[in-house]
């Protein structure tokens, strides 16, 4: 089987999970596409999963109430082994990329990380991935009875529900006790279009000046033109914006039709996350800012003056 560990939040499958389903359906290779749903009280998620996968395996227990890398790795490895999975697919999120290597070591299996494409031919799995700050696209390959893959979010079009619902099975898992204690949590929420889904993104950098200006200019423009909101790491580190909005090497990789950067210098680590956008627009008061080198359109000017004019002009 082709095993996918479902990611879900707020009782729903994530878009990244549906992308993995599509990747598995189109990759070739044999065996049913199988979603493994882990958590506590996940019957609703399992029902939703059955709309997309041929089989759904459900691990529903108190031990799975909260994510822990050792627990998740044990569950995925056990099911992969019992089900003789040829492919184990895990989301390319922070958590996915932190427990997937453990699954690979447990199963003594090769691990292809952060795949943007996927194809299976017999026991050989081939994937592409971005390296060198996304300037290089590499093709990597592994041959083994089981191959572990993490899939980069936003790389595949999400699967549509199937005509017939898949079968659901409860699974009995042998799980280790979590050794890491979570002693506090701070959740960052953003209520906007997910960045990896937005057609247009307005991103603010330190040049925007302050959290208040960010709301007025970046969110103001985004709301006016129906865009998602992004931020540079400088702005996230300063606590102006949540990490969920960070674009770049250590944030999200986005490929919108238009990417509008306000007061962003264009550091290589930022370009790594948005350099594949169709059109890039930069507004920066420094004509020498590196962002202009990758921009299709730019205005050399002060965001305090240009952005209000843009918001006003966009009303017409």
């Amino acid at each position, binding site marked *: 089987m082709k095993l996918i560990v479902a990611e879900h939040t707020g009782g729903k499958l994530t878009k990244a999970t549906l992308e993995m389903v599509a990747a598995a359906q189109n990759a070739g290779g044999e065996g049913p596409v199988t979603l493994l749903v882990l958590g506590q009280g996940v019957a609703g998620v399992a029902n939703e999963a059955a709309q997309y996968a041929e089989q759904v395996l459900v691990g529903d227990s108190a031990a799975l109430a909260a994510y822990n890398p050792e627990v998740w790795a044990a569950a995925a490895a056990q099911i992969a082994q019992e089900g003789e999975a040829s492919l184990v697919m895990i989301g390319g999120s922070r958590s996915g990329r932190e427990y997937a290597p453990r699954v690979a070591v447990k199963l003594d299996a090769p691990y292809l990380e952060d795949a943007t494409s996927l194809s299976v031919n017999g026991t050989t799995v081939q994937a592409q991935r971005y*390296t060198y700050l996304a300037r290089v696209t590499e093709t990597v390959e592994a041959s083994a009875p089981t191959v572990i893959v993490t899939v980069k979010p936003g790389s595949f079009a999400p699967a549509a529900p199937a005509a017939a619902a898949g079968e659901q099975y409860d699974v009995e898992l042998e799980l280790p006790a979590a050794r890491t*204690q979570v002693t506090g949590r701070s959740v960052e929420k953003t209520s906007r279009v997910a960045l990896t889904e937005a057609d247009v993104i307005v991103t603010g950098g330190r040049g925007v000046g302050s959290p208040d200006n960010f709301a007025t200019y970046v969110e103001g423009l985004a709301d006016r033109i129906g865009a998602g909101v992004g931020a540079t790491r400088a702005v996230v580190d300063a606590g102006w914006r949540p990490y969920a909005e960070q674009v770049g090497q250590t944030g999200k990789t986005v490929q919108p039709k238009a990417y509008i950067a306000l007061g962003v210098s264009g550091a290589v680590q930022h370009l790594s996350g948005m350099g*594949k956008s169709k059109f890039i627009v930069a507004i920066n008061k420094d004509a020498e800012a590196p962002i202009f080198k990758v921009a299709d359109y730019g205005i050399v000017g002060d965001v305090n003056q240009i952005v209000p004019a843009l918001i006003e002009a966009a009303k017409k």
Partner: protein
Amino acid sequence: MNILTLVRQVPDAEARVKVSGSAVDLEGATLVIDGMDEYGVEEALRLREGGANIETITALAIGPKRNEDALRTALAMGVDRAIHVETDEKLDAVALSRVVAQIAQAENITLILVGGQEADWDSQALGAATAERLGWPQLTWTNELKIEGESLSGRHDVDDGNESFSAPLPAVVTTQQGLNEPRYPTLPNIMKAKRKELRKDTLDTYGAANTVRVVNAEIQTRARMNRVIDGKDPQAAAEQLLDLLRNEAKVLA
């Protein structure tokens, strides 16, 4: 307690990358210690300076000769000794973790610090793979770290925010920007570092075989129009930009 901190020598972020044939060619690129690893070296030193009872801090690199320079940097920053498993063989993280785990055991290590993400290959896998081999817990994307007796505590980034944690030692911790501000090696320390131990080792005894092949590498660039508008008249500039976005690029309604 002994700390192992992993380092690599990688192309500088600003370096131009080229591809020769089907692989990335580093010829002529400026090479530096991977920034993410540097935070690990710095953190090991700070844990000691902060009073944790740390006997030896060892820097480890596995890879081609150029990694010696990363080890020299770590020694000059203040680690006690270095080990270089020198090989031109390309090892994936799962294979590498075999080597790291065996060295951690031989060196009686209690805490391993690894960069959270490789600057060149972008991999985040080595820390977790090593933790699994050793049967240790792991903490990734750490931005605050304390040792209290036999346990670790701190804060790290997770999918939707960040968490404070405590975990038993031994453990693997991955490091990132924000954890600390790495020091610059001073000239006297660079001189002193030359007399510190840098042990050479080979891959032979570790039984590490690569399982991932790189079959192709390509550089994709997109030509950009670079149409820059002077913003002296904000209103005119804004209208011109909107017109381009609506009627030329056709990305706005």
